[in-house]
């Protein structure tokens, strides 16, 4: 109905502007769209510049000649393939851990009655407002004691122990929309509770599980704080730490590496953008679900 209304001349009563105001909205959208996009454009153009074009005044907008080689040089000058591999290991295993563990926990909260359930679920959610700083120092010492510092393990373990409060919340909400009749029918047929989860709830929850997997990937691909604390040596770095490899200061006599820094940033961002365009629906729905709380 709403779309029909748009196509005809009628402008719905809910919009803040009538027909006469629409050009203003368009103008605002375009100005803001440009403001949001320009930094990306400037980065990509810088990534294609030759070293001598970096520190010139006035700055040039377009590179004289597109230096595609910058992207290859990044891989030669820094162990970028190692960074990528480390990041993929962390993100890949965390996706497995997050989806499996969060499904199990969400199932427990959605389908079983037990004393303290309400309180425990509140505890799950309370972690969302807990500043991580209050646990990270002792976590660091625990991992040091276990000999896990400077390994990828501290970055992966949490995914297998709870799978993230937000993920549990999301899956629980989703499981609760699935009618219990399905479980009960299977139970009468003698299916175990685990089989009900595995063969009924999970297949019906594919969109929610995909959302969890995407956000898990996004978090681990972008995370900087935890790798910074737990990792030391270059060979263990993830991409977000490795990006700083090219952050040398020219004032201190370094050569201009800004074009490489930008090329590396572009390469780190492209997978995320591709992921967004191919799975846009899950991004938006996942966030929307998080807003419908209480």
């Amino acid at each position, binding site marked *: 109905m709403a779309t029909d209304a748009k196509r005809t001349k009628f402008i719905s009563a809910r919009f803040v502007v009538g027909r006469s105001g629409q050009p203003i909205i368009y103008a605002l959208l375009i100005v803001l769209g440009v403001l949001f996009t320009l930094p990306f454009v400037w980065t990509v153009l810088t990534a294609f510049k030759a070293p001598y074009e970096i520190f010139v005044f006035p700055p040039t907008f377009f590179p004289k000649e597109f230096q595609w080689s910058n992207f290859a040089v990044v891989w030669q000058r820094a162990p970028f393939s190692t960074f990528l591999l480390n990041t993929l290991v962390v993100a890949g295993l965390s996706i497995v851990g997050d989806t499996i563990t969060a499904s199990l926990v969400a199932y427990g909260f959605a389908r079983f009655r037990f004393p303290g359930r309400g309180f425990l679920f509140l505890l799950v959610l309370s972690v969302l407002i807990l500043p991580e700083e*209050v646990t990270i120092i002792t976590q660091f010492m625990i991992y040091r004691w276990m000999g896990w510092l400077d390994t990828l393990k501290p970055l992966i373990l949490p995914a297998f122990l709870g799978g993230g409060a937000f993920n549990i919340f999301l899956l629980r909400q989703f499981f609760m929309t699935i009618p219990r009749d399905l479980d009960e029918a299977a139970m009468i047929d003698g299916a175990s509770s685990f089989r009900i989860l595995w063969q009924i709830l999970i297949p019906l929850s594919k969109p929610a599980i995909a959302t969890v997997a995407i956000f898990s990937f996004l978090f681990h691909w972008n995370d900087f704080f935890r790798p910074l604390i737990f990792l030391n040596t270059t060979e263990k770095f993830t991409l977000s730490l490795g990006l*700083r490899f090219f952050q040398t200061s020219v004032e201190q006599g370094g050569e201009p590496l800004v074009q490489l820094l930008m090329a590396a940033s572009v390469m780190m961002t492209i997978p995320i953008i591709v992921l967004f365009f191919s799975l846009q629906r899950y991004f938006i729905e996942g966030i929307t679900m998080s807003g419908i709380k209480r």
Partner: protein
Amino acid sequence: MSTTSATLRRPRRSAARRREALLGYLYISPWFLGFLFLTLGPMLASLYLSFTQYSMLSAPLFIGPQNYVKAFTQDKLFWTSVWNTLYYVAISVPLSISISLLLALLLDQGLQATKLFRTLFFLPSITPLVASVLLWKWIFQPNFGILNYLLRLLGTSGPMWLASPEWVKPSLIVISLWSAVGGSQMIIFLAGMQSISSDLYEAAAIDGTSRLQRFQSITLPLLTPSIFFNLILAIIAAFRTFTLAYIATEGGPAYSSLFYVLYLFFNAFKFSNMGYASALAWVLFIVVITLTAIQFQASRRWVYYEAED
């Protein structure tokens, strides 16, 4: 007879109940283990450490509340970091909430190409923050950056931005706005707006209200739960700002972007003052929890909840 069947059935039912409860506990056990070993345990341990002097070289030395006393009465950098953080929270949170709301409103006018603009606003929020900060650092570069060049074309000379004690916080706020306003906040506002029933607007229109009046008396009140939700999370995130300043300035120049968590991080992982850093972490924890609790209390006065049916 009826009594016997009742007594016979009861234990069986409670056995089933117990089995159900046991299975429930079993399924949530991965989370519970994580909560014990990654959250509750470390929290309590850091509470203890906050009353010690501990450099990780020798055993923690119990010193009572000295760390807290030192922070509040002797440590000038502590107050610098508190001031910087409060400044950042007070400016960036209201700006980011209102810009997100404005963006959502612009996207909710039923115009063509709205999806394209939604994507343009959203992309910075999923860009790795490290990459975003590095690219803005290059934009803000005082001598060769594009921003000061554009300003010069307009006839003024720009400041040193991230290298200037006066401009560094506003510059960081610009970066944080760019990378956050079009993200989850905007999407949540948009979803909130689109979930308001059109009947309300149409009824109000029949009563002869203006569009602005309808925005004020229908959209805004019904959006207060989304505003509240975004506000809680935005304030916590702003208090915890770290990566932004760490990559852009490492707290400089002259400590003018030394945010609280940055200072905490330096104490813990640069100076190995684990006891002092733990005390700083607990102060942050108490401030954040208190602020959140106050907001929940205050929300009763301004957040509008539709009666549940």
